[in-house]
């Protein structure tokens, strides 16, 4: 009887470990997307967005503002429309173009993969979202813009279908995080 229970517990633990490993591997697979300039330019340090593949500070003294949409009468939507404007150096665009709000700035710069994963799961840091809502967020037009960034900008290299599948795989396996590693 006792041996039987032990076998069940061990099998359960092994299954949980397998799921954790699968989740962590799925997360590691999406990290290059999260660290791509198309994402990082709005998830970097500072009270302002960044531009370009080198992540330089956004020109025109653009600021995050009280809600992530800009400051005073100059908002993200002063220039950014709901779609890209044609032409090199013309403003990119997608619906709801904005930065995270200052109370949860979702700064990813400098985080290890594990810290980034933990931030994404933490409702106190991720915009009060559940893991399922994070999965949904990854399918919003603003995030998917990274695959269609307009002329003169590199798109996120991983196929979008693979990215979304990996995000779902991470969540479906319990959203475990990779092991701790050195800082980025």
């Amino acid at each position, binding site marked *: 009887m006792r041996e039987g229970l032990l076998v069940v517990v061990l099998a359960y633990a092994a299954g949980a470990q397998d799921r954790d490993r699968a989740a962590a591997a799925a997360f590691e697979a999406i990290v290059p997307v999260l660290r791509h300039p198309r994402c990082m330019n709005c998830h970097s340090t500072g009270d302002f967005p960044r531009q370009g593949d080198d992540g330089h500070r956004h020109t*025109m003294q653009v600021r995050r503002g009280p809600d992530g949409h800009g*400051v*005073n009468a100059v908002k993200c939507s002063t220039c950014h*429309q709901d779609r890209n404007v044609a032409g090199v150096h013309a403003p990119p665009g997608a619906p709801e173009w904005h930065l995270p709000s200052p109370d949860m700035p979702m700064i990813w710069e400098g985080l290890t993969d594990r810290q980034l994963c933990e931030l994404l799961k933490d409702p106190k840091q991720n915009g009060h979202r559940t893991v399922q809502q994070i999965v949904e967020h990854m399918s919003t037009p603003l995030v998917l813009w990274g695959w269609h960034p307009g002329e003169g900008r590199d798109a996120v290299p991983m196929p979008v279908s693979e990215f979304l599948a990996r995000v779902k795989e991470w969540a479906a396996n319990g959203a475990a995080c990779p092991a701790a590693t050195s800082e980025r």
Partner: protein
Amino acid sequence: MQQITLRVNGRQHAVKVDPETPLLFVLNDDLGLRGPRFGCGMAQCGACTVILRGQVVRSCVMPVRAVGDDEVTTLEGLGTPEKPHPIQQAFIEEGAAQCGYCLSGVILTAKAVLDGKPDASDEEIRIALGGVLCRCFAHTRMLRAIRKYASGNRQHANPA
């Protein structure tokens, strides 16, 4: 082509245009308004600025379909040559322009900032003007004019 109704400077207009036409082209070509100007065509200079929903927008990149029912204010919507708006009057008094090509961006940005925050600091106004280019170096006069307008507003709101 599609019929689109626009409210501009207190008047309603019906125009038949491609909904993707930049608002600037409709203002210039269909409504004959020359305040907002074509500068760079890519939201980099501010010459085409108008006020919409209390914020400034670059009309050269905004498709006319995105305006909706909201009122658009252009530079000529502020005042008239006979009775300029106080911020226009302040610019006249300070001689705060040479060619004037940038004035839609400068005046409407300053007005929108001060409408939302009457006690905006010089620094806040300078930050807001960060996206407006002027190539004739009238900046110090412009800031003086904006300060004069803001100070007049504050005195009007809180008479001694």
